[in-house]
């Protein structure tokens, strides 16, 4: 069947349209995802996600145990405990809260505990700031979590449900984070289409299925969960004798997650009629593009709308939106950018002494490409600075000059878009 002929199981008329902001969309998705435990720190920098979710709990609309804790460090610790006992767990945080949570993020992934964390991406202090950029997300990039970035409120809803499925997949068994841009998505109302509760329940296969493990002292495989009837230790000491052997499978499972993210994206398409590229990347007119812009999150939409304008004028420019930051889609990038001459990476975060994190990952991919396009890093939007369509136009106009020139000097490869002085 061709894509045009596909009739989703739940076409739009069988879905319910709701008007919600990004935070509310995630809270609603979590409510539908049959989550057993939500542990969250309820005060700044917390967002409306857990406030809205706690209303569902108070109204008796969900069976979830809501644990209000005293810090984000404890929120993630409670989720680790819940997931280790076999529960489906969720928490949400932002900026400084995520920074405080980082220590325990490594524990969740190292213990191979599926769970979902919503991150409303916001800048890190100092200076104190409450607005959007990706510096908090960049802080957790090596924590062993699957990291998915949504472009709009609809995708925030869709990705949250998908994240549970990806995280709990038997080949993956890794925690997953869903990222939405602070304010640009978290506080923006959009109308989205939602599935009936039972459709989400079926999509996730009901409650969380616990992975089986083989241990020395039981004959058969047992649940990888804390259970007094079959005592296990989770989180043991592993020194140079075993630590390495436990860390490498995290890498291998992350690779498998690439396929699972793609499968889940297709499955979601058959269910709802919505999909996001191949799940990992969402390309727009890159096939014949001389210039490709790479972006993540809500800005990708703004860039795409400008790219369309330039295409109408005959300028060969395209957009490659990265949806999965971890696992990073190296293969797709090499394939999709094989014909490009100039690639501009848009980084909404800064790494003093180095290029932006996204640029480094793209550079690692492109080293192995035959075409070896010219590569340039545009740092933009720090601390919530708006990315206007005019700024994107200014960037493309500069890129066209670079393309004509045919090279970019080393000292010009890190650029700042929309900064004064």
């Amino acid at each position, binding site marked *: 069947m061709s894509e045009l002929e596909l009739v989703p199981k739940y076409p739009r008329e069988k879905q319910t349209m709701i*008007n919600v902001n990004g935070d509310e969309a995630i809270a609603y998705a979590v409510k539908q995802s049959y989550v057993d435990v939500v542990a969250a720190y309820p005060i700044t920098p917390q967002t409306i996600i857990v406030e809205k979710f706690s209303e569902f709990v108070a109204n008796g609309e969900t069976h979830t145990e809501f644990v209000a804790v005293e810090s984000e460090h404890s929120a993630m610790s409670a989720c680790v405990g819940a997931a280790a006992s076999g529960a489906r767990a969720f928490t949400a945080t932002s900026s400084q809260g995520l920074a405080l949570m980082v220590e325990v993020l490594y524990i969740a992934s190292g213990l191979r505990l599926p769970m979902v964390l919503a991150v409303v991406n916001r800048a890190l202090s100092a200076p104190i700031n409450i607005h959007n950029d990706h510096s908090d997300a960049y802080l957790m990039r090596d924590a062993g979590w699957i990291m998915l970035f949504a472009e709009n409120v609809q995708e925030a809803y869709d990705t949250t449900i998908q994240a549970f499925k990806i995280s709990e997949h038997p080949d993956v068994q890794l925690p997953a984070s869903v990222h939405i841009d602070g304010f*640009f998505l978290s506080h923006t*109302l*959009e109308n989205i289409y939602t599935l009936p509760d039972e459709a989400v329940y079926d999509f996730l296969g009901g409650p969380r299925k616990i992975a089986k493990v083989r241990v020395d002292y039981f004959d058969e495989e047992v649940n990888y969960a804390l259970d007094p009837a079959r005592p296990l230790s989770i989180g043991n000491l592993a020194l140079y004798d075993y630590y390495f052997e436990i860390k490498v499978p995290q890498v291998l499972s992350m690779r498998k997650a690439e396929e699972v993210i793609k499968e889940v994206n297709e499955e979601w398409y058959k269910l709802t009629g919505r999909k996001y590229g191949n799940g990992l990347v969402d390309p727009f007119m890159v096939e014949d593009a001389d210039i490709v812009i790479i972006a993540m999150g809500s*800005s990708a939409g703004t860039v795409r709308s400008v790219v369309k304008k330039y295409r109408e004028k005959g300028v060969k420019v395209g957009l490659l939106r990265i949806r999965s930051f971890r696992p990073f889609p190296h293969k797709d990038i090499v394939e999709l950018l094989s014909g490009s001459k100039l690639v501009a990476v848009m980084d909404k975060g800064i790494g003093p002494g180095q290029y932006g994190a996204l640029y480094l990952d793209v550079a690692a991919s492109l080293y192995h490409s035959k075409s070896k396009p010219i590569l340039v890093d545009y740092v933009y939007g720090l601390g919530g600075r708006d990315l206007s369509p005019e700024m994107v136009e200014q960037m493309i106009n500069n890129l066209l000059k670079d393309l004509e020139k045919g090279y970019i000097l080393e000292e010009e490869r890190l650029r700042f878009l929309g900064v004064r002085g």
Partner: protein
Amino acid sequence: MIEVRWHSRGGQGGWTASNLTAMAASYEGKYVQSFPAFGPERSGAPILAFTRISDEPIELHSMIYNPDIVVVLDYTLLSPGIVSGLKPGGTIITNFAGDVNQVLKTLNVKTGDYKLVLIPASKLALEILKSKITNTAMLAGLVKCGVVKFESVEKSIRERFSGPVAEKNILLVKKALEESIEV
């Protein structure tokens, strides 16, 4: 795509009005977006809110720089800055009960530069709601301009408020629509 910029003061419900407009348009099958000028809101301080309404999915996630329509909930906010970025021939919907020439003078614009819709929102809100909250009354301006239908606004108000509060606000929009003047 229609882009609307709302001018109000913290506490007057500018963002709520933007949300209600977006919701109303969504009932008509449109794609919508509504957001405030982000930041801590202080009661009484001038704030902005934005609405996008489109037949196609909305990709833009930036502020609105060149609105088609500006709506002013509080006439003390009227100043030349209100028309900043407004598209040529765009629409200004303002809460105002006096002489139109006074508005033109305050905005420093000429007749015909922009379409102007005047709504005596403060007067009507005091009569019907017994309060100075003008956000729902100003929705009449969007109905007047054909951006959303009255029935859709009615539905969005019922969705957001309940009981007598909803009914009073619907009555307010109806009255505001009757008493609005297009110049």
